[in-house]
């Protein structure tokens, strides 16, 4: 009985707010206890210093802090939550998972009073779904353009001037393309990458994924044009490294750029650290950074902020909230910027001149916030990524025209929305 009771399908309490307290979690009191945190392996700073600082500041003990491989975490969380496991208190999250796990009732909703006032909007979006806040961000992340100044110079370009429009970008990429070297590369080898790259061009062309009622509108004229232009990088202009189609993650792309054989990439902020790192052919002087050139708008980008959320079955929710809040504090955020090359989640740290000094990319980031930066994390993100990756691959391989591909994807998405958005 104890076994099946854990995940009995007939049990109405299996869904919704099944935690220790009903309703959103408010901060207060002086929480105590022990925490178990399951994070991805993006940040080293917590283990290095933040946990110790947190323990001495709050008296809460972090019993275990585990870094899992990002690719494995979803499965692990899904198993934990489905079994109503209470051993893990804090889990890492991002826009997609926030929506997915939040809607499933597996994450503890936070009261507005628990949210720091100076949070940057995209970072807050990464931990919210349909107006409810399910966690607090740990760092912000937005894609920007990086280019190799050495290659640009060799191609006879003005190495310090970023291409500002799509046409300029294509021209620059063309100039930097030569045998054994491509002007541009991206990562569309896996579903998430396919989605991100599509979303990016869609936004760059002024389009959007959904309207207010989550009706898919990405098969609009802007969408079709954007996808066509993206495809042409590979098929017409031949500036995109064909290996992009098999590159399955951002780090491969980062390495590729650092190897010095790729002119331009649109990548997450960690690219700066990789490109200026020891193993790289580039240096701080030869890495160019700027806004991603738009097609019909000046620029746009996609968001990749991450955060922490609280397991709804946790028995230490107050203590967990204390950890979430501690991570957003200035000292921790500053370290994340300084030591790891991610953007901070609060405007206070973002505007601090120290940040831009430590991480030049921060300047670009601030500019980016003027333009559309979205992610559209939804409960159906996995399914959408998957189906979109199939269509995108067909488009890139010339099997399906962009319009047909998008129409097909949109109608499938509509079914998904209907299923999950009740």
């Amino acid at each position, binding site marked *: 009985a104890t076994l099946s009771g854990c995940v009995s399908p007939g049990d109405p309490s299996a869904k919704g707010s099944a935690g220790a307290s009903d309703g959103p979690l408010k901060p207060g009191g002086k929480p105590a206890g022990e925490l178990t945190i399951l994070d991805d392996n993006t940040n080293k700073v917590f283990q290095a210093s933040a946990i110790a600082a947190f323990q001495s500041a709050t008296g809460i003990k972090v019993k275990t802090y585990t870094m899992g491989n990002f690719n494995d975490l979803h499965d692990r969380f899904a198993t934990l939550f489905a079994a109503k496991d209470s051993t893990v208190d804090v889990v890492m999250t991002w826009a997609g998972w926030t929506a*997915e796990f939040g809607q*499933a009732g597996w994450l503890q909703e936070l009261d507005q009073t628990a949210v720091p006032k100076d949070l940057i909007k995209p970072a807050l979006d990464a931990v919210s779904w349909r107006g409810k806040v399910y966690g607090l961000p740990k760092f912000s992340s937005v894609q920007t353009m990086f280019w190799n100044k050495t290659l640009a110079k060799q191609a006879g370009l003005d190495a310090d001037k970023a291409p500002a429009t799509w046409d300029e970008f294509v021209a620059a990429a063309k100039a930097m393309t030569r045998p054994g070297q491509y002007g541009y590369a991206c990562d569309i080898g896996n*579903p998430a990458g396919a989605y991100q790259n599509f979303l990016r061009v869609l936004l760059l062309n002024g389009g959007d994924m959904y309207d207010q009622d989550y009706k898919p509108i990405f098969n609009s004229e802007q969408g079709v044009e954007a996808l066509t232009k993206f495809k042409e990088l590979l098929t017409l202009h031949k500036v995109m490294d064909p*290996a992009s189609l*098999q590159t399955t993650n951002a780090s491969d792309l980062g390495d590729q750029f650092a190897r010095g054989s790729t002119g331009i990439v649109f990548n997450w902020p960690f690219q700066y650290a990789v490109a200026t790192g020891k193993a790289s052919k580039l240096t701080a002087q030869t890495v160019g950074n700027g806004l991603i050139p738009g097609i019909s708008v000046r620029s746009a980008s996609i968001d990749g902020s991450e955060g922490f959320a609280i397991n709804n079955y946790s028995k230490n929710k107050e203590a967990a909230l204390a950890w979430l809040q501690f991570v957003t504090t200035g000292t921790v955020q500053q370290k994340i910027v300084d030591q790891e090359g991610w953007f901070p989640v609060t405007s206070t740290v973002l505007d601090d001149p120290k940040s831009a000094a430590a991480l030049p990319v921060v300047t670009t980031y601030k500019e980016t916030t003027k333009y559309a930066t979205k992610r559209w994390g939804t409960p159906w993100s996995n399914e959408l990524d*998957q189906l979109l*990756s199939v269509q995108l*691959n067909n488009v890139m391989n010339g099997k399906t025209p962009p319009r047909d591909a998008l129409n097909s994807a949109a109608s499938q998405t509509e079914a998904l929305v209907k299923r999950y958005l*009740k």
Partner: protein
Amino acid sequence: MAGQDPAPVDGAATPARRRSRRRTRELRFAIGMAAPALVIIVLLLGYPMGYAVFMSGFDWSEKTATPPSFVGLGNYAAVMHDPQVLAALLRTLFFAAVTVGAGVTLAVLIAVLLNVEFRGRTLVRVLLLVPWAVPPVVNGIMWKLIFDGSTGVVNAIGLGLGIFHDRVQFLADPTWTMNVLVFAETWKLLPFLCLLMLAGLQGIPANIYKAARVDGAGAWQRFLRITLPNLRGPITFALVVQTMWSLKVFDTIYVLTGGSGGPAEGTTTINFLAYLVTFSNLDRGYGAAIAISATVLVLLFAVFWTVVLRDRKEVAR
């Protein structure tokens, strides 16, 4: 009545009772020996399996806020009509057919080769074990390094020898990736199949080859008419067991394709699809239904195997 003539009753009962005591002892021994293993298997496989069957009867999506509802065979009906399942099934059949087919064919040929006496044969047989010892995860990483579109050694060699005009994006095209997967899997499963075939070859009496030579059969005919028919047992066994294993392949796909079964679902076999549905889509009922349907498919092979097995046991006697 009972007290009238107790002696014969006793006399008849005692040996029977004695004998049965001996039998009880044997029985207790047999149960004691077999039970722990069976209990573990039944508990740790039987319970989850039953649970999976149970789940497959529900519309059990973790992502919707609605509680699971019983749908009977609804999920199975949906499986039948799902184009994604059909595509995955075809992919799986292709994968299984080629890995198993190529694997068994190569295994027979290699086994025949290694059954001939030559210097260093033992060494070759030992090295044969190398792919077997490579864990699936490592296998995935390994072939990814080899077939990578920009840094892969196959491209370097192909370009160097002038076979390719340009880099081939093996892992960017669904068909190519499937072929790489097939290649990787075949490489890995070959040693086991080879040993199986070697075992079968050792079981063929040497004299019937001599008899065939005297009877005028050439080398090729001896292979076709003596070796192959006599390997029927091991071959059938290899076919079926390997089909089971091929349908279950997960780790290699996962690592080779960065956990996606891509590109464009190109390597999403039925088992991988069940994984995606269960763990990415969190649609547990449907995922279970897909997996169980696949299992049933495999069990059809098992039934077939049972028949073959019975045949083989008779030969042994």
